């Protein structure tokens, strides 16, 4: 199937994670122009190393969800031609609810929910002017089925899903649509550490019988950005091999 796209420039928030880098390669292959965000020198280095043979075909920009002022500078750099936004950004915060540090809790939601709301407002307004825009929020199966210790992570993901859902409801008529993708177990990043320790046990919970790869997820996101997926708006899609559907 040939995919078609209504635009070229794609923001990739949280652009230094493995999934984002895999997506960036797929976007470049599809003749799109990814703008990947990083929040420190390590992230910047990861992006440039992964895309070293793609110079001139992508951009890397500083954006830190923990630093509100970074948003204005970021948007000044990206300019007014934003067609797509794929959002991987999310800090980890693993703690039992009854054991969490209160100050950390406030900060976590400020960074991961309030900052995101401000960013969505500003990017959506750019898209309203352009009369087109497509957002894909990368949520997690943990939003629906968290393990102990994932309560804050799940709460921030669910709150962010709600923001994206409403954006799609409110602006769908203006050409701006949203999809929230909930991948299940992926053998990469923070999922890899867990699967290294609990892989067999986790696999028994997946009716599909296999974990996801970064390539699987990148291909799905590419499809969701394409005109072929235009019918999906303001909705969550579970991509977890049936993990969250069964008992």
């Amino acid at each position, binding site marked *: 199937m040939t995919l078609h796209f209504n635009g070229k420039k794609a923001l990739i928030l949280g652009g230094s994670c493995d999934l984002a880098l895999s997506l960036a390669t797929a976007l470049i292959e599809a003749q799109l122009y990814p703008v990947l965000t990083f929040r420190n020198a390590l992230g910047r280095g990861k992006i440039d190393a992964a895309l070293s043979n793609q110079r001139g075909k992508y951009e890397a920009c500083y954006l830190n969800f923990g630093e509100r002022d970074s948003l204005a500078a970021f948007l000044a750099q990206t300019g007014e031609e934003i067609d797509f936004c794929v959002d991987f950004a999310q800090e980890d915060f693993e703690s039992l609810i009854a054991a969490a540090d209160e100050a950390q809790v406030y900060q976590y939601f400020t960074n991961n929910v309030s900052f995101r709301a401000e960013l969505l407002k500003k990017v959506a*307004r750019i898209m309203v*002017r352009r009369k087109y825009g497509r957002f894909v929020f990368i949520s997690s199966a943990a939003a629906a089925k968290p393990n102990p210790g994932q309560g804050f992570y799940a709460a921030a993901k669910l709150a962010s899903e709600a923001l994206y859902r409403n954006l799609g409801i*409110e602006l769908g008529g203006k050409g701006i649509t949203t999809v929230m993708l909930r991948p299940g177990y992926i053998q990469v990043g923070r999922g890899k550490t867990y699967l290294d320790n609990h892989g067999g046990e986790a696999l028994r919970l997946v009716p599909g019988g296999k974990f996801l790869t970064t390539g699987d997820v990148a291909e799905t996101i590419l499809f969701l950005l394409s005109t072929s997926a235009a019918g999906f708006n303001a909705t969550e899609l579970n991509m977890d091999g049936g993990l969250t559907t069964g008992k």
Partner: protein
Amino acid sequence: MDTLDEIKKILTEILDIEGQEITPETYLVRELGTESIDLLELAVAINAHFHIEVKDDEIFVKALRLHLQKAKDEGFDPAKYLAESYPALTTARIEEILADIEGGPVLKVKDVQSYIEWQTKNKDND
């Protein structure tokens, strides 16, 4: 083209109301049927056209009733409270709004015009 003409042009395009008369006294919601999504588009268009920062509450007097309730709860003079919340509006316009509030959404084209001119002046002074 002056500010009012620019606003009329933008409104006509967003609301698709070619031929309808728009004056400074026209109510955006009561007469033109403007909805919240249209106001969002209007804010975005004004930001792009006039190169000014647009705060949706201030330009569209959105939280008027909330401000009035707060003034009442805290024992402030409503007119003074509104003047602080909506610095682009004149004292005379605030009095007019207070007298008109029972009739429905008070926003008029001239309020949008005042905001744009006020923000433009602020920008020029920066």
